[in-house]
């Protein structure tokens, strides 16, 4: 038995983005040991460099033909770097760039250990990257854990703040329980299908003989951990508490990167592994989507804390992103409708990443002046920092789906389109009503920015350069996507044709 035959052959090129990020993580961890305290912020540019290189490599892979590796047999591979995976990875990596920029000043303000912070962050990103490429249940689960576990620590990293620890605890406990449920589901899926490979699972599930109650239950239980990651109701309750307690850049990370990973896993499970059961999980997802957006929006109406508001808003947004998956509920069963749904999900996710990170960036910028993050602190922001106010209002408009931030509008439009295409008018109507509810809190927040101020004018505190950079990046992306959303539409289209 030679070494070659014992181990799988590995196509390192396919792994490039994940490898680069993992390498950078280690590098940062090690370099941090040698850096003097004053130099520790260098972790930021170092991590940025790594992530950007990974991003470039991901783009390069997108142009190439799909690469598969860790194959059990030519057809069954655990890791596939196709355009679908690259699409998620690009969202993850690009968002990470922004998160890294946001963290620079938080490190100093909250006395976070720079090396560990970046290591953990990048480790989590590695999980997100492998998630998108994984094609078996085990890899998906491990990736899920890799995304989560460093994140627990990141949330609790403000070690002098009790709330940070509490947030980490809640996040951890809910995560662990959700994972356990997922594992139960996976074990039953394995029991039913005898395989962990998504393709083989799908093949097995196509057999009418598997149509048993346990199969359906197994499938929905499997979704639990991922539903937890994307903060779908009823797996959402950790979100506001955790976001509030976590360092704000980490909250931003959770709301975008970690959520993207969750969606990647969800889409892979549903669209690849459990596709034959679309009629079963379709209605479940539709109902979850409705519950998620409604609960998120309703509770968001009553928030006074900016980060908590964004947390609930991100719950609601997750509901919108889930909507296309609910299209399977129509039983319309058209393949192209499901493809369009997947594409819509990607489009929304990409635009959501940009606009939500932008909103978080603005909140961080404001938070340096009023760390309490009460919505009242935002009154009259326009008179103190007009540009910041305008940009924040822009992002809020985007989240609400209103012009001039047409990008947000198009995100919703694509989702609506998928739903209408899937013949689920009631779901579309519910979402329509929800957008109206959501508008209330976005609009009143945006409006407060331009109202009279309650704070006495203090010396204008400039927004730190890195945060400015983050705002600039997100704003630029949102503006570009507002003018010409075709890019993201097309990319999503190509990505979903991958499988």
């Amino acid at each position, binding site marked *: 038995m030679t070494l070659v035959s014992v181990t799988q052959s590995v196509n390192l090129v396919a792994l490039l983005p994940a490898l680069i990020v993992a390498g950078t993580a280690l590098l940062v961890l090690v370099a941090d040991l040698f850096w003097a305290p004053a130099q520790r912020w260098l972790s930021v540019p170092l991590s940025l460099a790594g992530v950007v290189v990974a991003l470039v490599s991901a783009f390069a892979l997108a142009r190439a033909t799909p690469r598969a590796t860790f194959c059990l047999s030519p057809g069954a591979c655990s890791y596939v770097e196709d355009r679908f995976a690259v699409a998620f990875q690009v969202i993850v990596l690009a968002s990470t760039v922004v998160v890294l920029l946001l963290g620079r000043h938080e490190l100093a303000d909250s006395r976070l250990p720079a090396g560990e912070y970046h290591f953990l962050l990048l480790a989590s990103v590695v999980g997100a990257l492998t998630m998108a490429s994984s094609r078996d249940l085990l890899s998906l689960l491990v990736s899920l854990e890799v995304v989560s576990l460093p994140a627990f620590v990141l949330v609790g990293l403000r070690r002098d703040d009790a709330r940070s620890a509490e947030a980490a605890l809640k996040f951890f406990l809910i995560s662990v329980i959700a994972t356990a449920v997922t594992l139960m589901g996976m074990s039953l899926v394995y029991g039913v299908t005898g395989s962990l490979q998504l393709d083989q699972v799908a093949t097995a599930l196509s057999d009418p003989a598997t149509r048993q109650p346990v199969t359906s239950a197994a499938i929905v239980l499997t979704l639990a951990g991922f539903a937890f990651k994307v903060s779908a109701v009823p797996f959402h309750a950790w979100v506001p508490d955790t976001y509030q307690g976590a360092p704000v850049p980490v909250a931003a990370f959770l709301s975008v990167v970690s959520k993207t990973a969750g969606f990647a896993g969800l889409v892979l499970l549903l669209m690849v592994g459990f596709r034959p059961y679309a009629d079963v999980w379709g209605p479940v997802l539709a109902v979850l989507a409705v519950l998620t957006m409604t609960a998120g929006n309703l509770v968001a109406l009553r928030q006074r804390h900016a980060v908590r508001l964004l947390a609930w808003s991100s719950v609601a947004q997750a509901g919108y992103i889930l909507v296309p998956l609910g299209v399977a509920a129509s039983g319309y069963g058209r393949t192209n409708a499901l493809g369009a749904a997947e594409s819509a999900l990607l489009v929304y996710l990409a635009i959501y990443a940009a606009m939500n990170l932008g909103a978080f960036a603005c909140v961080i910028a404001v938070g340096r002046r009023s760390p309490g993050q009460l919505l009242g602190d935002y009154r009259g922001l326009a008179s103190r920092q007009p540009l910041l106010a305008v940009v924040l209002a822009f992002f809020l*408009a985007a989240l609400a789906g*209103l*012009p*001039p931030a*047409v990008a947000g*509008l*198009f995100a*919703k*439009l*694509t989702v*609506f*389109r998928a739903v*209408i*295409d899937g013949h689920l*008018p009631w779901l*579309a*109507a519910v*979402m*329509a*009503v929800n*957008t*109206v509810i959501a*508008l*209330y809190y976005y*609009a*009143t927040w945006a*409006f407060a920015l*331009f*109202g009279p101020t309650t704070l006495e004018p203090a010396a204008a505190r400039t927004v730190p350069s890195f945060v400015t950079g983050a705002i600039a990046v997100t704003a630029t992306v949102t503006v570009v996507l507002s003018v*010409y*959303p*075709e890019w993201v*539409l*097309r990319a999503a*289209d190509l990505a979903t044709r991958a499988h």
Partner: protein
Amino acid sequence: MSWQQVFLVGLLVLPALGAVLALALPRQAVKVGVATSGLTLVDIGVLLFAWLGAKTGTYGWFAFAPIKPGGKLQGLVYGGGGCPALVKTGPQFVSNTDIGRLCYGGEFRVDAPWLHSIGVRFHLAITGISLPLLVLSALLVFLCLVYTVSHPPAGGRLPALVALVLLLEVGMMGTFLAADLIVFFVFFEVVLVPMYFLIGIWGGSDRKQYAATKFILYTLLGSAFMLLGFLGIGLGHGSFDFSALSGNGLSHRTQDLIFLSLLVAFGIKTPMWPLHTWLPDAHTEAPTIGSVLLAGVLLKMGTYGLIVIALPALPLAAHDFAPYLGVLAVIGIVYGSLVCLAQRSLKRLIAFSSVGHMGFVLLGISTLTTTGINGALIGNVAHGLITGLLFFLVGSLKDRYHTDVIDEIGGGAQAKLPYLGGLLGFTAIASLGLPGLAGFWGEMLALLGAYHPAAGLNRGLYLGLMTAGGIGAVLTAAYLLWMLLRVNQGVVPPQWRAVRLPDVSLVELVVWTPLVVLTLAIGVYPRIVLGISAAAVSALTGGSP
């Protein structure tokens, strides 16, 4: 790009540029606003005359002499080019319905790729139906900005105000220019945000934020349903382009469902009873120019959409829902008038009068006839002019009296302010639909349409609607004259005797004169509007009466 296209795009670019400039040059903001909105007005003016010129006198404003039949029809609809087959075959083209579709061709058109993936093109076009509304929008924005020169609303921040108004203009122009459902939707939405801030920041009282929020939430609800409807249409037709709107590919049931959502969407904007309650609050709180633009242009978007989108795209559903639309319209007419009779605040009164007037517009549409839709169009324009002017006047009264409660003014306004009072009298009379002034034609044609609704509609019902509408017209006169009696007439009450109130200023005169003149001109010579629209409407209805 032909010069027509340059001018057409200019309608969007000029105000957008102006908005940016106004923010960049805060000191000159108002001047920038006036200049750019003026240029936009000139722009649409040039297009207007070019459009008329392209019709070589067969259509348009000037037809004093008999014209030989057989003029080229396709040239009439869009000034050259176009889709002659469609127009020529008129009634036959539309198989089981008598609603045809508009022809989007000719030189006054821009069609560029935009969102290829979902089949959306950046398609703009001027049609006989949109042209009057485009002119109206450009004119009102220009006048509002000129008005701002001397009457800036309380709340300061003029650069922002000017920028928002210009942004509003972009949205309005875009809405009326759009020839693609998604483009239409985007521009329709563009209007919301500036108006929200206009009401919320420059509004009148402590209820302004409530009003602004109500406005934006209510209209967004409509927009959301509109988007759903559009997507349904687009996916059914396989294209979002207006020229594809035909009802093909949509089952009867689907059409009904979509029409219902569009009815809610456009009904909210119009506003149609009982979806109107955002309007009085928005109008009461909005600054004068906000009210003017709201009443003058924004409300028209709803009925415009109903005419150019809902009718051609969903012909079967249009037939199903027309009676309901008609009933709601007439309820709006009568209800609006009754509420006005008991109204104490001038601004609210005029706001409710809009419900009634737009009821006539909706009634016209609900008849599905050329006559009725022509009436709806001219009613739109007339309401824009007259109610716009009314809001200007009431705003000015409020500036002077610092109240718009009728009892607090207490009468004698015409004695105190002869010119302002006189103008108020004129406008109120125009508003009650006096023949010879613009408001009449819309009401009359709507009623005439109801007298003879499209084939397949329940004529008995429509006769009832016509009668109720007629009674509504009497009630309209009643509340307006009753308002005049309590505001304009009588002696100056003691509390105002010692107060010196300035009468109409030069700027006000300059701003209001065009509206007065147009009200008179259209009233005397409705061909100014109908000459432009009739051929397009005829194509739309496929020659239905």
